[in-house]
């Protein structure tokens, strides 16, 4: 499968099978096409060539069973919605047109908020939250949708270690329940330790396999090219872990985590 923007392909000849119930990290350097891959899977971008099947249909066909969490930078944080409002949006696709959220939907929202530890902030306007809390809310929205497949774009990038651990615990739990989790990440340590499988991508699929694969220096150098440095037994990736892929049109980047550390 090949896909891209304008006349520039972002990913080429991608051949990837994701087993259901797996916990897969998609790793690769900036601009490797990780987000593009996720958007194709979410049905947001049409592939140029090739065939993609998600939950037994074309991408987007089973949209109500897929929860996609975009990179945190793509929404307007000043928007007048509360934490509970945002999480309730996860229920909208299941309701279909015309129907209003009911008691069952509110229960799902409450459960999701408890799971991510945000139950005390349900009425807070989202812009007043810290970066880590915002990420928790978006994961809660995905949980509230009770999906078969999670597509998460950089869910643990740029947030504090506690939040990273909590979110990974939740994703692990979802994978144990038979839900499939596909997440892009810059964090190779997290990919190696907390995910079951990795797909290393740099425009093409470099390798797919168990998470320990990511510690192989040869694989790393093929994925990251010149951005890699091997010092003795220590592998150092010269890839800014806190920098995101290039912002698309209309996206704003926030770097508040650095400032909000208390």
């Amino acid at each position, binding site marked *: 499968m090949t896909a891209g923007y304008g006349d520039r392909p972002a990913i080429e000849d991608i051949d990837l099978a994701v087993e259901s119930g797996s916990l897969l990290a998609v790793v690769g350097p900036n601009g490797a096409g990780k987000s593009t891959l996720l958007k194709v899977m979410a049905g947001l971008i049409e592939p140029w060539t090739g065939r993609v099947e998600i939950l037994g249909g074309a991408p987007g066909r089973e*949209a*109500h069973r897929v929860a*996609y969490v975009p990179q945190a930078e793509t929404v307007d944080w000043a928007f*007048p919605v509360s934490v509970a*409002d945002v999480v309730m*949006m996860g229920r*909208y*696709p299941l309701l279909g*047109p015309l129907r209003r959220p009911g008691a069952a939907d509110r229960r799902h929202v409450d459960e999701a908020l408890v799971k991510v530890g945000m139950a005390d902030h349900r009425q807070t306007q989202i812009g007043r939250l810290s970066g880590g809390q915002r990420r928790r809310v978006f994961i809660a929205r995905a949980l509230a949708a009770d999906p078969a497949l999670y597509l998460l774009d950089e869910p643990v990038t740029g947030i504090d270690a506690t939040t990273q651990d909590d979110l990974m615990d939740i994703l692990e739990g979802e994978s144990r329940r038979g839900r499939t989790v596909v997440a892009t990440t810059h964090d190779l340590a997290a990919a190696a330790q907390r995910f079951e499988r990795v797909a290393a991508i740099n425009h093409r699929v470099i390798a797919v396999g168990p998470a320990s694969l990511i510690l192989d220096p040869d694989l790393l150098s093929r994925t990251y090219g010149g951005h890699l440095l091997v010092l003795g037994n220590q592998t150092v990736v010269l890839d800014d872990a806190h920098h995101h892929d290039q912002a698309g049109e209309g996206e704003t980047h926030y770097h508040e985590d650095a400032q909000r550390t208390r």
Partner: protein
Amino acid sequence: MNPILDPLAYQFFLRALLASVVAGTVCAVVGSYVVLKGLAFIGDAVAHAAFPGVVVAYLVGAPYAIGGGIAAFLTAISIGWISRRSHIRVDTAIGVVFAGAFALGVFLYSGIKGFVGDLFGFLVGDILAISAGDLIALLILSAIVLGTVAILWKELLYSTFDPLGAAASGLPVAALEYLFLGLVAITIVISLQAVGIILVVAMLVTPAATAQLMTVRLTRMIVLAAVIGATTSVAGLYLSYWLDVASGATIVLVQTATFIAALAVARTAGILRRQPTTTPG
């Protein structure tokens, strides 16, 4: 002599009062989304682009609302289409399309021989001149707009807040976008007679922006905007009647004054709220 009740004895004033309340409300509801989507400039463009439609309707003897509505909607669609299909930025596309459309309106208007006072009314608004038939059309269009917003409440909310997430969850975000532009076009037609093409963007944006200063919940923002839109329209109408000045401009000035007052209150409240935490430490 009672300055509030006396004008109500006139049919034309009652019609104008009802029209301004309804137009003020509908504009504020749709305007809340316009503000949140960052579409103020598109609102202004679509309003100006209604002018050639109104002139053509005058020339062929069709209802103004239909001519203006079609022109406004076509402009909204073509702005979206140009910015989607080419490398031109959306604000540039708006500038090109709306100036071109408005120029076409002025071109056609200036070619008409004889008295065209009716048409001039559409540029600056003349709500006291609204006919019973226009008022009925306005009420029907308003019901359509408010009904659509109520029915598609959660879809509009999700696709406005997070278009990517909404699209991925299966909502037809592009179709909702076009539908919303259609609602903006209808709303502009509704308010043309009240405030006119040049000032209609204020009816859309100012009450919504005022409400945004006062709350952080969408429902409350829309309700507040509607209340502000309706009351400022009534206040502006009375003021213009007493002072014998243009109604549209007076309504907009009352709305602007309300916004400035809300801004001052919000700033003061913000400073007061922040004071305890600004102690060094």
